[in-house]
């Protein structure tokens, strides 16, 4: 399957933080969830794709085009929704759209109007009068109305109520139905990914620690629960992280069959993305 977005060897350093050789790909017709705790580097990656910050190494290709050399063509195919939608506050929605529309040759006014109706957004209302959820809806309407092939959403669900959160995620699933478009959305809310994402990339401290189809993660990763035998130094390398508590030992494995063979008496629970993130982030290993 061709890649809508391909990132390889991406590096960017700030004081006290660095993205280290970040590589992953978002296939066409899929939704990729970029997940990680706050400060993991999700927003930096989004900014690098949009050339809001300058990369120090690596390559970013959007539908085969370099995001710097072909910046205009690349941005023409991207729809971007920011975590806190920021548009001209004191202007009616229809005027904001009339400012944005001329930049996109594929702008579809009928689709935009239809989305305003679907999202129940009054075109004459000023942007500043909208709630956060409505602002997010409006940003999404703008991003979708120019027929973007790659939708990039930076923490789109933060601050949204559960009803609209569900609506938004369903809408994203609808975007990729033609098999040509793709969605990359960053979040630290892992339940969003369980529901929507086809692929998951987990970032920790600027590094990709996991990038795989969500179904693979579901099939291969588990939380192993047992007693002190899980701390056995010979068999312990099967685990990516281990956590001790007064009630026993828990470990994270990415190889269920081998772990089952090594610890037949242990209890195996499927690992959620949150489990994986928490285990790997805490860096817990048996001390």
């Amino acid at each position: 399957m061709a890649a809508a977005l391909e990132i390889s060897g991406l590096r960017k350093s700030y004081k006290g933080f660095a993205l280290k050789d970040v590589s992953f790909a978002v296939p066409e017709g899929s939704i990729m969830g970029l997940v990680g705790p706050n400060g993991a580097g999700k927003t930096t990656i989004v900014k690098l794709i949009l050339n809001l910050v300058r990369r120090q190494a690596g390559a970013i290709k959007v539908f085969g085009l370099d995001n710097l050399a072909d910046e205009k063509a690349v941005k023409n195919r991207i729809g971007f929704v920011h975590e806190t939608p920021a548009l001209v506050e004191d202007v009616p929605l229809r005027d904001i759209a009339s400012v944005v529309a001329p930049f996109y040759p594929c702008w579809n006014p009928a689709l935009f109007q239809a989305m305003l109706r679907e999202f129940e957004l009054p075109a004459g209302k000023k942007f500043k009068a909208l709630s956060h959820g409505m602002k997010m809806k409006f940003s999404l309407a703008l991003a979708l109305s120019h027929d973007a092939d790659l939708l990039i959403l930076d923490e789109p669900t933060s601050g949204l109520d559960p009803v609209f959160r569900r609506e938004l995620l369903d809408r994203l699933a609808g975007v990729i139905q033609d098999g040509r478009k793709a969605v990359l959305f960053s979040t630290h809310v892992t339940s969003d990914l369980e529901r929507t994402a086809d692929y998951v990339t987990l970032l920790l401290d600027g590094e990709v620690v996991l990038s795989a189809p969500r179904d693979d993660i579901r099939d291969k990763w588990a939380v192993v629960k047992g007693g002190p035998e899980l701390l056995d130094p010979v068999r312990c390398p099967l685990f990516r992280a281990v956590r001790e508590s007064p009630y026993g030992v828990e470990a994270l494995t990415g190889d269920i069959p081998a772990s089952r063979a090594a610890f037949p008496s242990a209890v195996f629970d499927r690992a959620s993305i949150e489990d994986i993130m928490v285990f790997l982030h805490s860096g817990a290993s048996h001390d």
Partner: protein
Amino acid sequence: MLKLVGKDLLAARWILLCGAAVLSLYSLQPFFSAGFILAAGGALALAGQATVFFLEDRNKTEILYLSLPVSRASIVGARYLLGAVLLAAGGAMVFGIIGWAGALMHVPRPAGGFPGLLSIEAAALFFPLTAFFLSLYLPFYHRFGFGRGTLLFTAAGVLCAALGAAGLKAALSDAFASGGGEAVIFGAVRVLRLSLGTPLFVLAAAAAVFIPFLVSLFLSTRFYARREF
């Protein structure tokens, strides 16, 4: 670039119109000298540009505009185009509305040796000086952003104005001793016009508008290409 200018004018339309209306009403009063009106027109153009940047900073819209399919160079170019539009609008205010309406209504002005608001000398002062300050502001803005850029520009602007006044005073000390500063400046411009001849004088004034603008555009484009958001 016109599309980018359009969104700035849309964002700041009411503030700009209010500023223009206030300036028009105040400047039609007889006790304001032509020099004051020229300075106020220039300040209006500068304030207009700063207002657009302020709104962009307050609303945090720059990231949205940078995500549109436009290059950073186009965004910088559009800001210069906006500067040119504001310069032209300030000129239209000063020489069109205030100058023309004032003349029609026979509004008397303190003269002080000044040839009048509707003169080539006045235009040759207004456009290059306003363009100079706009040209000074924009690289600071593109290098440091709105807050620090505006502060640094203000300091640099005051310094340039003080140096300019000191230079003029040193060059024309006799004239300064005998007349007010405003009259001396206009007098000097008149002498320049007479010595160069009108066509060459107009050409020199046009060059004084465009050369700083172009140098400034070059610097701003370089600065903005390196900015991170």
